[in-house]
């Protein structure tokens, strides 16, 4: 399928990512895919399905089973002028590559006084809610967002998935690209004709009573919450941040200036998470607009639990609505 033809069609997020990767490979012969089982199998989630067949084994590489190796060799490929796209099979398996990511990928441009570019994209299916065993449901974004030199983004719908993955690959900086795995096969949606800038947040539902900001896996929860709150007469403004680092603070602050209230939700644990950073910025920049403290509804400060407890642990609809109640009653 030629990539231009997917614009205007309705795709799942999984298929949209696949098409986005395909387009990136067509557009730039320096783009290579690497990861465990990405070739013949098409990845355990089939996101790279068919790419090895169409682009060959030297551009879609089934790597040895070693994440530090995947990312470390991507650095070498980047130095040699390639644009590697690494797939980490599951969120919990990125940590063997942690040193390569935070000490090497993130710093090489800086260490070379700007002479080396490291245009690596590290794709990570992340987040919970799929009933998986341990290490398969984590939200590691804060570790990476805390590291200068890395950009961290998360797609939340098929159109963004299609466009953002291409933007991440085309970006000359390294990008941690988070894919909310439980949304891979959720509702299909139309692929927009043009992308939104990669690090720009988007108001996806306008409202006046309070702002609900989130990204990735919890965007759909936020929209549900807004729907439920609207039924009770509370009009929430929902922001899909899209980028965790850098954060589009302006869009959030603009919204809070209008609504006076902010709740941030994400699956990653509470303490030192992205919501804390956003809360800090909003109180710095919109202090006099705030009618309530900025609230956070997130994963708890515990390891990701066994799957029988994940619904309690996750920021689900009940928990977000409870947060909204607390926010509105200030």
């Amino acid at each position, binding site marked *: 399928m030629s990539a231009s033809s997917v614009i205007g069609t309705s795709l799942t997020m999984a298929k949209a990512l696949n098409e986005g990767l395909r387009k990136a490979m067509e557009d730039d012969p320096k783009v290579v895919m690497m990861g465990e089982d990405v070739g013949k199998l098409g990845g355990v989630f089939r996101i790279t399905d068919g790419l090895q067949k169409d682009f060959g084994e030297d551009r879609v*590489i089934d790597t040895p089973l070693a994440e530090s190796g995947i990312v470390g060799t991507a650095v070498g490929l980047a130095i040699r002028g390639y644009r590697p796209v690494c797939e980490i099979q599951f969120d919990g398996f990125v940590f063997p590559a942690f040193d390569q990511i935070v000490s090497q990928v993130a710093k090489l441009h800086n260490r070379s006084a700007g002479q080396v570019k490291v245009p690596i994209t590290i794709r990570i299916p992340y987040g919970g809610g799929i009933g998986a065993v341990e290490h398969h449901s984590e939200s590691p974004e804060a570790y990476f967002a805390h590291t200068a030199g890395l950009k961290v983004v998360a797609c939340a719908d098929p159109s963004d998935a299609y466009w953002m993955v291409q933007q991440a690959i085309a970006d000359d900086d390294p990008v941690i690209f988070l894919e909310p795995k439980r949304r891979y096969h959720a509702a299909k949606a139309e692929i927009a004709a043009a992308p939104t800038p990669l690090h720009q947040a988007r108001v996806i539902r306008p409202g006046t009573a309070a702002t609900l900001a989130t990204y990735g896996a919890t965007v759909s929860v936020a929209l549900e919450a807004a729907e439920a709150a609207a039924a009770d007469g509370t009009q929430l403004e929902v922001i899909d941040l899209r980028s965790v680092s850098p954060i589009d603070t302006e869009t959030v602050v603009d919204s809070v200036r209008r609504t006076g209230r902010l709740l941030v939700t994400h699956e990653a644990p509470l303490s030192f998470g992205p919501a804390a950073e956003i809360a800090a910025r909003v109180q710095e920049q919109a202090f006099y607009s705030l009618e309530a403290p900025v609230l956070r509804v997130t994963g708890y400060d515990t390891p990701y639990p066994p*799957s029988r407890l994940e619904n309690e642990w996750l920021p689900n609809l009940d928990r977000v609505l409870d947060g909204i109640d607390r926010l509105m009653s200030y």
Partner: protein
Amino acid sequence: MSEHVVAVQPEPDMIQLLTPEGQRVDHPDYPLGLSDEDIAGLYRDLVLVRRIDTEAIALQRQGELGLWASLLGQEAAQIGAGRALRPHDMAFPTYREHGVAWCRGVDPLTLLGLFRGTNLGGWSPSEHNFNLYTIVIGAQTLHATGYAMGVVRDGAVGTGDPDRDTAVLAFFGDGASSQGDVNEAFVWAAAGNLPIVFLCQNNQWAISEPVERQSRVPLYQRSAGFGFPGMRVDGNDVLASYAVTRRALDDARNAQGPTLIEAFTYRMNPHTTNDDPRRYRLGSELETWKLRDPIERVRAYLSREAGYGSDYFAAIEDESKKLAEHVRAGCRALPDPTPQSLFDSVYVTMPAELRAQRDEFVEFVGSLEEASA
């Protein structure tokens, strides 16, 4: 890329003590020293762990387990190695060593919590000298190595006292052999001459990747570069797996240092219940390996050479049915964790702020229950 990679062929010198047809063969370095009764006991183990596996797969299909990693085809490697351990030896499994768990006396129900999602393992490694399952590929080989360092510091090697001398057995897969952790474990074990046996079950596949993706040389040859011996055993031959592991564990206990054993076997089922192997391997490969089934050859030996008759096999079949019932009923009866247990055992000493988070959570869950009542 791929044309540079040399396919890994089974070595002609693969150690075997029982042929696929059930013929006993002797090996000069690995005398078996087991009676027919012992062999019949191994047969029982093989049948029972296969039954546990079959039941677990069925439970997954019925929605009682979220996932299962099948050991089908690898029973002999696991039972052989597991039975070679002494009670005070320590084993470090991956997530597939249900057969080793069996040999250590771990109730199969204990294994199911992780796969059902009621806990994250939850057993005590010291209760049966069987570490928790480790899903992060290769990590446990370093834990095993550190444990072996502790054994040396405790003076529990090379004393000649069989009740004191202790060996450590670390399991990993062919895919895992590529991880930095595994290679670091080799370095440490060699440098410290540690009492550890690395047992790689080469089941030919790491999900969709054949072993040629990981290595140009047979995996057992990897140890040579690190400075300790390696050998390949027929992992579908429980007798050879037993004899070779016993010898390596003895060497470890006698302060002779580490050994790498490559158990050459085959993952007959999908990687896990989530996997679809039709996308990456030929059905004919499975057919070939069925001819090397680890159980059939023992049965053939017992009935043809050792005079075991249908009564014996029927009794085991009976026992296997009872075990299956235990697994089925026990799995369904596994208690769901209470919501507030989310906050248990995160720290030895719970920080006040986490206690506050828990209390808020409990109150919130209570308010939901009230609202729905």
